[in-house]
């Protein structure tokens, strides 16, 4: 744990919190400003949507493949196997609650039975 120190009269920890806010808010604000300028049915909007989906999928897969904290204590093949079963269920049956149950249930079973 790094001790908190004063930086220009304010706590360095608070400075980190504020910087994290600025680093996030500026993207949201830029998004709000740009949203009105892009035509809904344009190829640019299709591309931006696709970028957002690809990026979010990337972030979520990173959380599953390279987790931090307690999830890191579980085997990778259990996580990916359970995700695969959940996705298979979603793609074939298109029932969200059942797919969550299949994914979560298979992960729990793998953790405690295998």
């Amino acid at each position, binding site marked *: *744990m*790094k001790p908190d120190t004063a930086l220009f009269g304010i706590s360095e*920890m608070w*400075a*980190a*919190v504020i*910087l*994290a*806010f600025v*680093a*996030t*808010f*500026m*993207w*949201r*604000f830029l*998004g*709000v400003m740009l*949203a009105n300028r*892009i035509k*809904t049915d344009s*190829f640019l*909007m*299709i*591309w*931006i*949507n*696709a*970028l*957002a*989906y*690809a*990026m*979010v*999928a*990337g*972030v*979520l*897969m*990173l*959380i*599953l493949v*390279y987790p*931090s*904290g*307690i*999830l890191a*204590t*579980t085997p990778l093949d259990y996580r990916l196997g*359970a*995700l695969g079963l*959940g*996705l298979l269920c*979603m793609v074939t049956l298109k029932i*969200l609650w059942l*797919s*969550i149950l299949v994914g*979560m249930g298979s*992960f729990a079973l793998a*953790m405690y039975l295998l």
Partner: protein
Amino acid sequence: MPYLTLSPAQLVRRGIIEAINVPGFALCSTLIGFGAIAREAGFDIWMTTTTTLLVFGMPGQVAMASLYASGASLLLIFIAVCLANLRMMLMVISGSDLLNLPQHKLPLWKRVLLMQGMAITGWAQLGFKQETIAPNDLLHYYKGFAATIYVFAISGTIIGFHLDNLIPEHVLRIVIFVTPLYLLLLIINAKQTTNKLAVVIGGTLCPLLYPLAGDWAILYAGFVGGTLSAFIIRFASLRADKERS
């Protein structure tokens, strides 16, 4: 599938009710993890809660707390959070489009306030609900949904900060696994084929690039996945149109 015909108040209520379900509890559990990480990093409860309130984007929050704990400079923390949360801009543009926000003629401060709640959970839910709720009605649903998951996120942060040790580890593992699982299930069910393909390419590429590119992998995978899928589907539909004519 026909759109639901509900009043604005009923849509808000529906948003609230549907948030008090898997999305709310999944997000709450994820933020329990953040609360615990922030406490370990030395942040107090006010700093931790303020981070969730203002940032409201888990990967950026975790990057901030863990980098601070590792002794990283403020500049490095700023750059890492910028990289982790760049997707917010794309999600806000995409979310505004889903909500038909320009048509609602809202003042800037209201749009900014509404988009503060636009994180992965709310955005993925909008993509999922666009099949059943008309674009002009989606804003009412979003207000109820986003406000509720915000409350869940703050509650999770506080619980994680104070009570992390009270939740058995074997339960916590499963609960934390549900968040990425749930969100991936939502986005793989995207209405447009372009977005489905983007999820597959981006989701596959990112973990493969991560050992080489670190946090930049998110940007690379997002750019390659999004661009490839947009052009592939565009090319396929142009070709289909040509063959038809």
